């Protein structure tokens, strides 16, 4: 009798879990390859506006995927801010996408670092999945024709010379 009860409970728990698993929909792509066309996206920014890839047509775009809990994302921030200030008058845009995070934590991260360029929370990590991003921080350098010229994993502050080179490639 106990065994039947136990089995029933297990079935009930299992059904509940299968139901709940619907909350975690995920179809991912491998990382966008160099030379491929960047995929269109729409991102809701922290200031309530919307951002999409088409807005950046004719400009280079540095798009970086970050998380508040990730040490490398935090270490990258001063460098990214500096880089933005250095290039803000060039034909280059910067965009930060918050992934693998809660919205409130990501917004806190943007506020903490005083991010001077557009930033938005990627609800459900949809953009990250399209771009094949599995880990923060990952940064793409997209040229004015929308072609991915570079993809970089990790703390970009450790590669200042390469960063300048990659910026030149998308100008």
């Amino acid at each position: 009798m106990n065994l039947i009860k136990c089995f029933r409970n297990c079935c009930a728990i299992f059904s509940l879990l299968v139901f709940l698993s619907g909350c975690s929909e995920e179809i991912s792509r491998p990382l966008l390859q160099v030379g491929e066309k960047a995929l269109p996206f729409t991102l809701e920014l922290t200031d309530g506006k919307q951002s999409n890839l088409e807005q950046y047509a004719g400009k280079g775009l540095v798009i970086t995927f970050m998380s508040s809990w990730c040490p490398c994302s935090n270490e990258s921030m001063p460098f990214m801010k500096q880089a933005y200030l250095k290039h803000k008058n060039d034909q280059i845009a910067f965009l930060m996408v918050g992934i693998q995070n809660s919205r409130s934590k990501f917004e806190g991260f943007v506020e903490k670092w005083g991010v001077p360029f557009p930033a938005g929370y990627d609800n459900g990590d949809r953009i990250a999945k399209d771009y094949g991003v599995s880990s923060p921080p990952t940064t793409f350098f997209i040229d004015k024709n929308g072609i991915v010229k570079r993809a970089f994993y990790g703390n970009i502050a450790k590669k200042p010379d390469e960063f300048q080179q990659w910026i030149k490639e998308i100008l």
Partner: protein
Amino acid sequence: MGGIAAVWGGFSSFFSIWQVCLLQISPFFIAFIVGIYLATVGKRADPEIRQWIIIPCITYGIGFIVFYSLLIASGLNISRPLIHNIGFLRVVSGIIILFAGLYILLVNRISFLRKIHTPLLLSTLSPLIGAAFALVYSPCITPMLSDIMGIASQRSTAVEGWYLAFCYGLGISIALCTTSVALILFTRKREIVLRNARIIINICGTILLVLGVMNITGLMRHYKAFVLGFVL
């Protein structure tokens, strides 16, 4: 960068600030090993460490390293189906981890489980647990992993990247297993541990249940955001 440097990179990341990244799996793996060991103490007075812990750790490591390296080497064709279906695979992994938690909780309560609880069963199931841990783990990127992922993500260098990721995963596994075995060796004769074995088993089982449920329901992001964020 060579294989030995990558092994060292994975190993040393465990004992550095980069442990923050590994907190997605390290407490859960330790809970698994400690829970299994203490559950075994309930069956035999002094279980042999090699049979009951070290061999399952090694087979766990094999499962972990294979899937971890394939997921890092996203430029390989063989990795693509794994990455494409990562959401589904995480749910399946969550269910496997959930069953591991239930197993630890129930092994001394259900006579059937008590009967099948053998080193052979553990060594056979541990690769599955290792694979499940690799699938639920989305690493944040240490400096060395940054270089490895850069190599492994592009098709032209994916095989070299896979090899380095394999070595890096080996380093992580060695650190995880060494720490767990050391923890058991250090505490197994302590009276306080033996006296509270049942409570510790329940905690270890519950920790695994929580990890399983978080992965099934997609709540893992909140664990990362709040728990890992708090540590940082």
